[in-house]
């Protein structure tokens, strides 16, 4: 394609007051020899957009560079792939990052805008039109687990018109909820347990024309990628292979193993049972001491039995307190005069279930105290003697009871060879340290590190049955999005709609396996030699492979090593005697870049010596860019990305962490070149920390000035 660039500069929103736009236009026309460059006072208005559209229609232009506001705004007007700009669009941010955050009519401000325009033009010259992949996509969903989450997910998908395959390991659907005597209060006034399970939904799912149910089943193998997963399901009757587009993982939970809790008396006496045992006993109809079958006239519940305990489950399962309150009502039904003791660390009854807590607490024969159970033994009268320390009543108290119930927590059923993925990175979903699938609970629940596979219900996070049902619904929606986007060749969250794909120049691949190891989503499989085998539908377009590759063979049509390198080359580096240091800032475009936009909205000022290049993810940073920048005489390089570690905020899970790891190597290289390693700095920034950015940038510039100019300047 013969590139015909057109540059459009907007002078609205105060840009014209801050910059000499005519002079800026000369950067395009004189320096870059672009014949078509127009300045308009209101480019996003009907007239401005109309001018661009007309130029495109006339064939005068096929690649558009817009120097105006941030690419994060006015995306409804300036759109690639739409009528206004059918081919290529590059946006240069001279509003938030220049006009709004630097001194008006200042020489440095002008230089900043000119550099950004040069960089934008450089990138636009290298961009190629995108060609979305298109293959036959299955829109059928696989739901793993026939509990309340899975049944709700399958029904939701079916009702929305998508076929679903429901796989359950038990002989019947229903899961744990179907075995319950009662459920937690589900409607106002939230004071009484709900009587029913969810038999209607189970029936509806069993007989739905769009749902295929496999019971007593297990998954032998899951191969392929979103839109074309091939799943082998084994039942006692047959082994079936189905093709599905996306997967909802609703495998639920199992109770924490109480045999690890001998200090709470489990195993010491048959009269010490778990809350799951108790539920079963109550469902069967008689609450009695297992040892002698006598009715339990006094029952003590130990909350957080093995929960919020660093030696067992360090987290709160959020349901055990409610389960205990519900169990107290079971006891009451059988014997109104029974004594119920509840020893808790904290009573946690999320949301409106606080009302259930109040109702249970108000009963005169329910006794609650904060405390730590220190021992459970036998009392002379055949009862259990429970000592509780640090109570609200006294330092140490002893209670004599008939039955002790340990309120144990939820353990996710996640990594037990369920999906048996044929991925290079392993058969299971990657999990966090407590076994929950790795996803971000605030920013992107349901997403796992395997594209097209969504975790829902108690496997994702401990939750009650109502929330699990909602979760099933949410995950079904995500799965539907996933197959629909796949059908259009588009990426899912967080680059939803992106049609670019990485391509690999295999002739130069050295089989170092860095890309296949580092891809957070397991998108790349390998052949026997270690050559990567891309699965484009698994890809989330973060570019981490591009950053990882030492041979620089990975590139997107609109994002490549070469493109960023040309942007770096486009920066005019002043001579040493001008005393105008230049600092290149690689910014994560998910959080840090918008934060800098907000700094612009707030008219915060920072040093105009910085040149910002947004990256899809800091993990897509190829270290060659740093060498490029420093060898061109740029005085320092900042990397600003998302927070990493246990509470990571990286949208691609490990991008910023990988970038940080690569920095260690780069710093060694710098030392060999006799450059101060302090010329390179990586900072973690959250999106709300825009207020810190000016200080961060100015501080770095200050240190660079003290260090003196880059000795490679002008070489």
């Amino acid at each position, binding site marked *: 394609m013969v590139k015909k660039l057109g540059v459009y500069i907007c002078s609205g929103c105060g840009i014209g007051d801050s910059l000499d736009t005519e002079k800026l236009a000369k950067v395009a026309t004189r320096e870059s020899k672009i014949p078509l460059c127009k300045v308009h006072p209101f480019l996003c208005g009907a007239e401005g957009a109309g001018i661009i559209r007309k130029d495109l229609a006339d064939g005068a232009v096929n690649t558009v560079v817009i120097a105006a506001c941030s690419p994060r705004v006015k995306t409804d007007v300036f759109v690639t792939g739409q009528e206004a700009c059918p081919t290529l669009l590059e946006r240069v941010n001279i509003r938030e990052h220049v006009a709004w955050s630097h001194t008006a009519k200042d020489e440095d401000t002008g230089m900043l805008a000119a550099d950004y325009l040069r960089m934008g033009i450089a990138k636009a010259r290298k961009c190629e039109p995108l060609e979305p992949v298109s293959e036959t996509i299955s829109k059928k969903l696989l739901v793993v687990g026939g509990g309340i989450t899975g049944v709700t997910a399958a029904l939701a998908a079916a009702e929305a018109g998508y076929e679903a395959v429901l796989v359950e390991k038990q002989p019947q659907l229903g899961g744990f909820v179907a075995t319950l005597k009662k459920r937690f209060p589900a409607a106002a006034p939230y004071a009484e347990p709900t009587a029913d399970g969810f038999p209607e939904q189970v029936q509806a799912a069993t007989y739905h024309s769009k749902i295929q149910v496999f019971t007593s089943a297990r998954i032998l193998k899951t191969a392929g990628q979103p839109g074309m997963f091939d799943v082998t399901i084994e039942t006692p009757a047959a082994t079936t292979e189905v093709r599905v587009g996306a997967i909802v993982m609703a495998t639920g939970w199992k109770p924490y193993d109480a045999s690890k809790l001998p200090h709470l008396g489990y195993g010491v006496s048959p009269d010490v049972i778990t809350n799951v045992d108790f539920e079963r006993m109550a469902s069967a109809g008689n609450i009695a001491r297992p040892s002698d079958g006598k009715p339990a006239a006094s029952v003590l519940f130990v909350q957080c039995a093995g929960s919020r305990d660093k030696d067992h489950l360090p987290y709160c399962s959020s349901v055990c307190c409610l389960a205990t309150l519900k169990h107290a009502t079971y006891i009451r039904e059988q014997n109104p005069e029974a004594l119920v003791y509840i020893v808790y660390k904290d009573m946690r009854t999320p949301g409106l279930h606080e009302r259930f807590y109040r109702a249970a607490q108000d009963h005169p024969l329910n006794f609650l105290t904060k405390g730590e159970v220190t021992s459970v033994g036998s009392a002379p009268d055949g009862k259990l003697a429970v000592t509780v320390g640090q109570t609200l009543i006294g330092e*140490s108290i*002893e209670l004599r009871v008939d039955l002790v119930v340990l309120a144990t927590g939820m353990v996710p059923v996640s990594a037990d060879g369920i999906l048996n993925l044929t991925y290079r990175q392993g058969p299971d979903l990657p999990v966090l340290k407590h076994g929950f699938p790795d996803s971000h609970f605030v920013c992107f629940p349901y997403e796992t590190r395997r594209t097209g596979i969504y975790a829902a219900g108690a496997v994702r996070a401990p939750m009650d049955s109502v929330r699990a049902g909602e979760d099933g619904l949410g995950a079904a929606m995500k799965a539907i999005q996933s197959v629909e986007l796949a059908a259009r060749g588009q990426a899912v969250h967080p680059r939803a709609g992106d049609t670019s794909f990485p391509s690999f120049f295999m002739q130069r691949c050295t089989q170092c396996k860095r890309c296949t190891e580092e891809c957070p989503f397991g998108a790349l499989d390998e052949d026997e030699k270690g050559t990567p085998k891309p699965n484009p539908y698994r890809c989330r377009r973060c570019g981490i492979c591009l950053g990882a590759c030492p041979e620089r063979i990975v590139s997107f049509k609109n994002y490549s090593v070469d493109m960023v390198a040309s942007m770096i080359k486009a920066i005019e580096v002043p001579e040493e005697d001008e005393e105008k240091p230049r600092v290149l800032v690689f910014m994560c475009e998910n959080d840090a870049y918008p934060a800098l936009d907000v700094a612009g909205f707030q008219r915060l000022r920072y040093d105009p010596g910085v040149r910002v290049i947004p990256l899809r993810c800091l993990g897509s940073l190829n270290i060659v860019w740093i060498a490029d920048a420093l060898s061109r005489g740029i005085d320092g390089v900042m990397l600003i990305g998302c927070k990493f570690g246990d509470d990571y905020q990286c949208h691609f899970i490990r991008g910023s962490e990988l970038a940080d790891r690569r920095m260690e190597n780069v710093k060694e290289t710098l030392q060999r070149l006799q450059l101060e390693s302090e010329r390179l700095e990586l900072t973690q920034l959250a999106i709300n920390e825009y207020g810190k950015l000016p200080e961060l940038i100015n501080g770095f510039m200050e240190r660079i000035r003290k260090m003196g100019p880059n000795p490679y300047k002008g070489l």
Partner: protein
Amino acid sequence: MNAQLIQPDVSFIREVRAAGGSDLKKCFQCATCSVVCDLSPDDAPFPRKQMIAAQWGLKDQLLCDPAIWLCHNCGSCTTQCPRGARPGDVMAALRQLAIRNFAFPGFMGRLVANPKALPVLFLVPALVLLAIILWVPKGPATPELEFANLFPVVAVEALFFTVSTLAAIAFLVGVIRYLKALRMCCPGILLNFPPVSAEIVTHERFAQCNTNQGVRWGHFLVLWGFLGLASVGTTIGIGTMAGILRTPLPWGSALKILANVCAAGVLTGAVILIRERTVNQARRAASTYFDWLFLGTLTAVVFTGILLQFFRLAQVAYLMYPVYFVHLVLTLALLLYAPYSKFAHLAYRTVAMASTEPWKPKRKPRRLSEQGAKHCVDFYS
């Protein structure tokens, strides 16, 4: 430390709920009550701990706890409680149960606390007085209408001395029982009365409850007015029995003036207290039968007493004698039931306050056992 065996007293929980602490179980131990309370001492704060002890039915621990008497029921805790557990009401209920528990004889405690027994409470003194009218021989009628024409002075005075003595004995036994309980909970506890007397004179603790200013002066007037009336009554009683004085006293006599000043004081104080209990929403909700029985009887005694004087002055027989009868019934009831009604707080609160006043003994207290002292510290902190 050995674990303390806890066995909830279920009937006690139900009693507390019936006696005005019906919201007691709502407490979730946030301790807002102890924080907002102006009287709660830093080293042994209340009423948070009393709330859970009551929820758990720890009767023995609570009844001997001086903290329940340190509360002056300003209601701050009840107003501020985020759960609506009304700790102030629970404390009042605990005081009522303490009075009932230490009552001698025990059935009297239960009788006075029972609203259904109200007619009996007043019927008994009425019948006794009726018997006196009917069967005790009277002296010759005086030309002017006088109360002695209805009741012979000697008989009335003898009756009041008997009743006062009975009440005093009941009080004594009750206080001894309370002290025993105190010593059980906190062996070696010592009583320090002088600071308490100062407190009674000034009502300083009431002043510390900044939401309680009206109650402070109401209570001050009622208490001192009542003590004045009680001493005038005793003096007149002894005087008439000894033949030194003769009723009715002349209008200008010092005793008469003192009596009227005190009566006016009690009436003013009582009106303030009644107003507090009716106008103030929180306090109205907190007022129980037990509160009203005492406050009502006391007010009625003074009110009928003042009324009597006017009727005697006006020499209206058909008003003067019935009101006198009612006045005597009420006064008898007040005295007779003093050890079992809210009146009894006079004794228990004084002792409780004396037991918590800091005391710096020169030598080691005699009966202080180490374990007991430790328990006490644990309990109060």
